[in-house]
């Protein structure tokens, strides 16, 4: 504010506190309090967690979670799934955004964009319910289609080997529109004159894309990668509706496992898992932002 600011009366201060009050109340009651609670519940005996005076057991829940082979398997499959999903989503979205942005696509660009973005605003649960049945062995269109074009059948959600790929595709369907949108926004502000200069210098089309355009895509690459990592680390809805963690625990990701424990009243362990996942999410986000910031842009 400039030096023109008139003298501030107490009244003018209080009115801002009044404006911020409902927002502050919601943030505290439905944000900060549950976070504090989740940490404190993770230190209590589950059976007493909801009581006025819960029994604190220190890090016992963490130890029992970390020594639980199901949790370890769950953590590993979560990490594998996250890695595969991030790579698949970001690369596919980047390639498709570059295609849509290129001079090869003229009329119809908006339709292509809208088609891809529609699943983002479709209630995820409804979308995944449809996918669950698309994969169905008898009702599903996926295997009927593969059969029609003479390809081998896809195990889909029925087989432990393919369940992860099946939900990866369903999630790709739901999320890529968002990533493409962010890439397109970045492509729109890329400096075309740099590309033209490189062309004059004799760089071919691929060299220009790789050495001139791609470096300018850093902001959107960072945003999308961080967003995707966080998104896929906490994969939940798709598991609830499509695989319920199965078959054979192949998709029993940490969020889902924590929820199942919560559902069984094992609050302490569920919250310990939540805290562990939060630390992983926060660490990954932090590292990703650091990497994104450090390199010159």
């Amino acid at each position, binding site marked *: 504010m400039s030096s023109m600011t008139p003298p501030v009366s107490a009244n003018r201060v209080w009115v801002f506190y009044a404006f911020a009050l409902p927002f502050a109340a919601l943030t505290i009651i439905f944000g900060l309090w549950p976070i504090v609670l*989740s940490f404190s519940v993770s230190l209590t005996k589950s059976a007493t967690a909801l009581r006025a005076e819960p029994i604190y057991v220190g890090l016992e829940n963490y130890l029992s979670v970390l020594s639980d082979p199901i949790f370890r398997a769950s953590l590993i499959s979560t990490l594998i799934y996250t890695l595969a999903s991030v790579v698949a989503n970001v690369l596919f979205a980047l390639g498709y955004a570059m295609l849509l942005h290129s001079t090869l696509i003229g009329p*119809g660009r908006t339709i*292509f964009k809208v088609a891809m973005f529609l699943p983002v605003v479709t*209630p995820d649960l409804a*979308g995944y319910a449809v996918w669950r049945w698309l994969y169905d062995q008898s009702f599903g269109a996926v295997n009927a289609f593969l059969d029609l074009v003479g390809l081998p059948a896809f195990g889909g959600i029925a087989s432990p080997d393919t369940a992860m790929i099946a939900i990866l595709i369903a999630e790709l369907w739901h999320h890529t529109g*968002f990533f493409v949108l962010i890439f397109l926004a970045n492509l729109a502000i890329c400096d075309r004159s740099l590309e033209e200069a490189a062309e004059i210098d004799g760089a071919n089309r691929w060299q220009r894309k790789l050495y001139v355009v791609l470096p300018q895509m850093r902001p959107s690459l960072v945003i999308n990668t961080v967003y995707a990592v966080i998104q896929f680390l906490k994969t939940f*809805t798709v598991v609830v509706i499509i695989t319920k963690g199965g078959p054979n625990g192949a998709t029993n990701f940490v969020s889902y496992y924590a929820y199942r424990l919560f559902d069984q009243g094992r609050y302490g362990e569920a919250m310990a898992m939540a805290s562990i996942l939060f630390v992983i999410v926060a660490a990954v986000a932090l590292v990703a932002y650091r990497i994104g910031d450090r390199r010159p842009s």
Partner: protein
Amino acid sequence: MIHRPLWLRVIAYAIAILVSLFYLYPYWWMLLGAFRPAEAVLTDPLRLWPERLDFSVFRDIATVGGVSIWRYLANSVWITGASTILSVGITALGAYALTRRPDLLAFKALRSGFLLTMMYPYMLLVIPVYIVMFKIGLLGTYAGIILFLALGPIQFFLFEQFFRSIPGEVIEAAIIDGASEWQVLRLVVMPVAMPVVATVTIITFLLNWAQWFPILVISRSPDTYTLPVALLNMTGELGVNFQGIMALAAITTIPATLVFLLAQRRVMQGMADGAVKG
């Protein structure tokens, strides 16, 4: 426009059309599944046009889990509508106060606290919210559900971004002319904020229409379930009623789809802005 070889453009369009079909086909298949008898889908899952329209499914889904479909629809409209209006009002006022006077005591802490909350994995936040609702007596109430859904990151970022873009001189001039803060808000800020209010309203509506997990967790009975939660309930209880699930999925999807298609430019612009900021 630079001229590119025709064959390359044909390939580019072929890819774009195939990809778009991949994204759109599930919607068509869902609609077909809702209006074709299940036996017909079993014999020919790939048929692209219904052999006849079968409306019998609406009898099957008239009640789900002992509650009328109309109640779920009414819950969806009420919970989404109320939480959207609350969200826009509360977040706009909060973001406005925090942007105008970031120097005030505790405002910095409030902003950081809010950002921390938004960073916390959502699904895992909802679980302790169950305990909070239990403690403050809002478990199983509409109030609990609506209040929880009134907080979201994209709303805050869009408003903050907008309020920062208002030149300070405009507000100062009004204050020098003797306007109270309330008048500044009503006569100076609100008239120019209408586009961002519209954007945030539509995006919040879409996001909250899709919500299901907090509603499931805060609810005590299906009486406060919305359409998506009813759909989840149905997949659990009647695992094999394929046609009913497709019909309920369609009823859940269509309102959001229509709202999005009517406001696609605004929604996509807003989601991009909100994400880039966050």
